[in-house]
């Protein structure tokens, strides 16, 4: 047996971070990164925005440059893992080759939920997850005038904004009563609906999509009530499914994601998971969660690296997210699920900036901040400190946010 080896499966945000953290935490053994896409880990958030708009090259998309992997002695190999052999501490590749590991980190990500409707297989119907998906959309752009987006979540809305800015007519279809229903307060949904309509998007809620129509290419989208929307391009953004099959077939615990403990470990001592594919217990919110976000992937990757290096670190970062649409930069701190009331700072019914704080028993548990970076950074600290500010002061634009923190901190 030679030097100890960490194998990381999946070239992703989690794995790029894990490579750095392993070295920073003192791992001197081998690091082998196996990816099932051709290249090094790249940033996914810009895919629906700057990359789709053609403002970023594939090289600029890389999370860390090739030089980083050379200097940190990380070996990258494009290869698909088809099977795990946990007890033998081995992974098996598509071509039958078997590789030994001392520690195995699963950074498998998630894949788009597929639309199961007639016509979903037509050319011109796209999903959005990897760089290749964007290249597919871009190839269709020169011949496209009308885009229909199925799904009014963040991915759908970001893509709608990007395509609108590229000059297409865009329709957004949402089956629920409002966009972003699963993740935001009605006030925030109403704000985004207004903005998208002001930008010229035909945004429809409470819509039932029955089929995609066309010969070999999509030409229209059939709605309940027999209306057909013209479509040269249809983009489906209806959520993702975690990639758990490798873990499941190997007998690891899986329940809406690969189940990990606070140290990023699965129920097998030498196997870990991080990112969109992992289900962890969040101590702050008191429940098991599977989050789909870069900061979550980064935090869990750091935790796994620390655990592999024998350091005691628990998954502890406050969940946060961001979404860019047009000139709007939304930053979300914390998780709002189960909130009792909201406090608004600024007016979402006019203008393009405000913050929506989510409170539970008077304490701030989350915040959606649109073009309000200060409110976002305030919220990160306020949630961490269990701050229960006076609602009137929180809403008052003339009350400095810093003063609310000082009150809390001096009160101990």
């Amino acid at each position: 047996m030679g030097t100890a080896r960490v194998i990381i499966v999946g070239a992703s945000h989690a794995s790029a971070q894990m490579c750095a953290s392993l070295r920073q935490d003192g791992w001197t053994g081998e690091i082998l990164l196996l990816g099932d896409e051709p290249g090094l880990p790249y940033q996914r958030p810009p895919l629906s925005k700057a990359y789709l708009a053609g403002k970023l090259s594939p090289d600029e998309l890389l999370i860390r440059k090739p030089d980083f992997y050379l200097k940190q002695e990380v070996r990258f190999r494009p290869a698909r893992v088809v099977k795990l052999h946990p007890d033998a501490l081995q992974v098996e590749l598509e071509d039958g080759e078997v590789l030994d590991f001392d520690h195995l980190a699963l950074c498998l990500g998630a894949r788009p939920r597929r639309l199961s409707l007639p016509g979903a297989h037509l050319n011109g119907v796209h999903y959005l997850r990897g760089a290749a998906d964007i290249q597919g959309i871009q190839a269709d752009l020169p011949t496209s005038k009308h885009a229909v987006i199925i799904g009014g979540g963040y991915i759908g809305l970001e893509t709608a904004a990007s395509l609108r800015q590229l000059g297409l007519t865009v329709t957004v279809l949402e089956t629920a009563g409002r966009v972003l229903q699963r993740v935001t307060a009605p006030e925030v949904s109403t704000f985004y609906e207004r903005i998208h309509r002001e930008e010229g998007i035909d945004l429809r809620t409470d819509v039932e999509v029955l089929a995609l129509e066309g010969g070999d290419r999509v030409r229209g989208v059939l709605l309940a009530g027999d209306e057909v929307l013209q479509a040269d391009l249809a983009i489906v953004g209806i959520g993702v499914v975690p990639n758990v099959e490798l873990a499941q077939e190997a007998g690891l615990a899986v329940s809406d994601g690969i189940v990990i403990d606070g140290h990023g470990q699965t129920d097998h001592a030498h196997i870990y998971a991080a990112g969109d594919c992992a289900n962890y217990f969040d101590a702050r919110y008191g429940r098991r969660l599977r989050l789909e976000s870069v900061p979550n992937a980064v935090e869990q990757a750091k935790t796994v690296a620390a655990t592999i290096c024998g350091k005691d670190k628990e998954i502890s970062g406050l969940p946060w997210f961001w979404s860019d649409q047009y000139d709007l930069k939304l930053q979300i701190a914390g998780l709002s699920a189960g909130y009792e009331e909201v406090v608004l700072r600024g007016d979402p019914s006019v203008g393009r900036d405000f913050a929506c704080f989510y409170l539970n028993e008077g304490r701030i548990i989350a915040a959606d901040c649109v073009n309000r970076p200060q409110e976002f950074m305030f919220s990160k600290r306020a949630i961490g400190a269990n701050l229960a500010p006076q609602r009137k002061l929180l809403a008052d634009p003339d009350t400095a946010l810093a003063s609310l923190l000082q009150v809390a901190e001096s009160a101990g």
Partner: protein
Amino acid sequence: MPTVTFVEHDGTPHTIDFVEGQSMMEAATNNAVPGIEGDCGGEAACGTCHIIITDDWISTTGTRSDRESQMIEMSPECQANSRLACQLVASKAMDGLKVRLPEFQM
């Protein structure tokens, strides 16, 4: 190649090469400098690449923008010369630059 030195809160220096036109956050993360996270990839959205410029360099680097201010000023470790490294584009004039890191990134 021009170099920049990141000094960790405990005094550990990391001197690395940088490429002109890259941000100082990219320079740091491409060289695995501990204490610079850059979670958002350079969007000034996360505030995890907070650096503090020494006084003798601030005229070269320039002071922080309004957006940077709104992000950093909520940090308990914010100082007059605090910046977000992702918003600091490396130029030849910054060869030899020395910056300090806060104890925690927010």
